């Protein structure tokens, strides 16, 4: 029987189980390989998109350097939301030393927390082709638009400076193929910023659901052109440096099959487009007071917010062919 005097050691045991499970889950997560995950102490985080300075000029002898202003883009505020649940260690578990049940409870709630976080990040991509609100993994309706009030993936992204637009939908939403990847890479490399200057986006990371894993590997890693009798070398090999197979892209929350969707991003810059801000990472906390005849309520909670920034560094296709 677990008595009140055993509370500190039980708490230590549960914390250990939490730590072990959390370590495994974090290693399994894919969202943190794409999103810029960072900590903040702010409840509301103001993000301003700056399109950089433009206007470098040739300076004549004796001439002062020209003074130029930064181009201010859109602004957005991300507010932290609170998530959590109670893990009750019941009197029955303590009275009859049901350690298996206690261990299983903690493991499953930790798994649920990290799975939910990862799915909420995957849903940003899966719901990225529509500007309509969607129901997230926690059952709450959330906005799908970025700072320009358009879907994450749009053919006509706008900016705050002028009427120039750009597309981050891979042209004509093709199904995954070698040709489509080549098209996407060209689209990224010739991307123009609002000032109409070419600012290359090097799409070096391919993100697919498990349904496309085999095809993606053959396209990227074959020595020769995959799927043909052509003996040309596979020029894509080495250019797309990273393949991320994200299980949670197979089906988005709500059950829609998104297994054919695929995405590419610039690994060095995608952190500007997709962000995840934690004010508090998931943790298991012991109750302040415990009673012999009541449940001991441990809590698992965390604060985080998902942010969509300037969307030029991630491209997507919903494989609709249009």
């Amino acid at each position, binding site marked *: 029987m677990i008595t009140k005097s055993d509370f500190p050691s039980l708490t230590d045991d549960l914390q250990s189980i939490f730590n072990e499970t959390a370590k495994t889950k974090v290693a399994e997560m894919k969202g943190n390989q794409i999103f810029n995950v960072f900590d903040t102490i702010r409840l509301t985080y103001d993000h301003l998109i700056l399109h950089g300075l433009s206007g470098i000029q040739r300076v004549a002898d004796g001439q002062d350097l020209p003074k130029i202003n930064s181009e201010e883009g*859109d*602004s*957005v*505020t*991300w*507010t932290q*939301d609170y998530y959590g649940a109670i893990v009750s260690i019941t009197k029955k578990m303590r009275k009859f030393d049901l350690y298996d049940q206690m261990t299983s409870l903690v493991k499953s709630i930790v798994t649920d927390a990290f799975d939910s976080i990862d799915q909420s990040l995957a849903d940003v991509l899966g719901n990225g*082709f*529509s*500007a309509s609100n969607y129901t997230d993994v926690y059952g709450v309706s*959330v*906005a799908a*638009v*970025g*700072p*320009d*009030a*358009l*879907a994450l993936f*749009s*053919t*006509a992204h*706008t900016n*705050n400076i002028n*009427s120039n*637009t750009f597309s981050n939908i891979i042209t004509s939403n093709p199904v995954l193929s070698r040709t489509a990847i080549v098209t996407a890479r060209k689209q990224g490399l010739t991307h123009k910023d609002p000032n109409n200057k070419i600012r290359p986006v090097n799409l070096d990371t391919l993100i697919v659901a498990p349904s496309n894993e085999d095809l993606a590997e053959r396209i990227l890693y074959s020595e020769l052109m995959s799927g043909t009798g052509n003996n040309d070398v596979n020029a894509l090999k080495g250019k797309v440096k990273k393949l991320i197979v994200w299980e949670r892209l197979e089906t988005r929350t709500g059950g829609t099959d998104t297994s054919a969707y695929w995405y590419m991003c610039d690994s060095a810059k995608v952190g500007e487009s997709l962000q995840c801000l934690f004010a508090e990472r998931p943790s298991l906390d012991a109750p302040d007071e415990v009673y012999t005849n009541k449940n001991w309520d441990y809590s698992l909670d965390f604060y985080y*917010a*998902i*942010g*969509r920034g300037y969307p030029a560094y991630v491209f997507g296709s919903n494989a609709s062919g249009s």
Partner: protein
Amino acid sequence: MENINWSNLVAKGRAKAHGVPWTEEEAKARAAGVSAEDIRDGVWKSGVVSVPNESAEISGTGEISGDGSVNANIDKVVIKKPTIKKAVKKSKK
């Protein structure tokens, strides 16, 4: 939770109304030069493009209806605005 600057976006014609984004089709129409007012007022409808000014040319298979709007697939419509050259020629005449 995400809060974007709706008032700025609406004022600049980059959103339909406060909290209401353009649909993908409407965003394409905006990029093609259709005014935000025309879309908001219902002058432009899905699959229908209104002519922004007299000198605009439209290529495609569209037919011009009585109210001056053109039934056409938005993807096939090219709107050409008058160039400075043409404007100079006109003023010389």
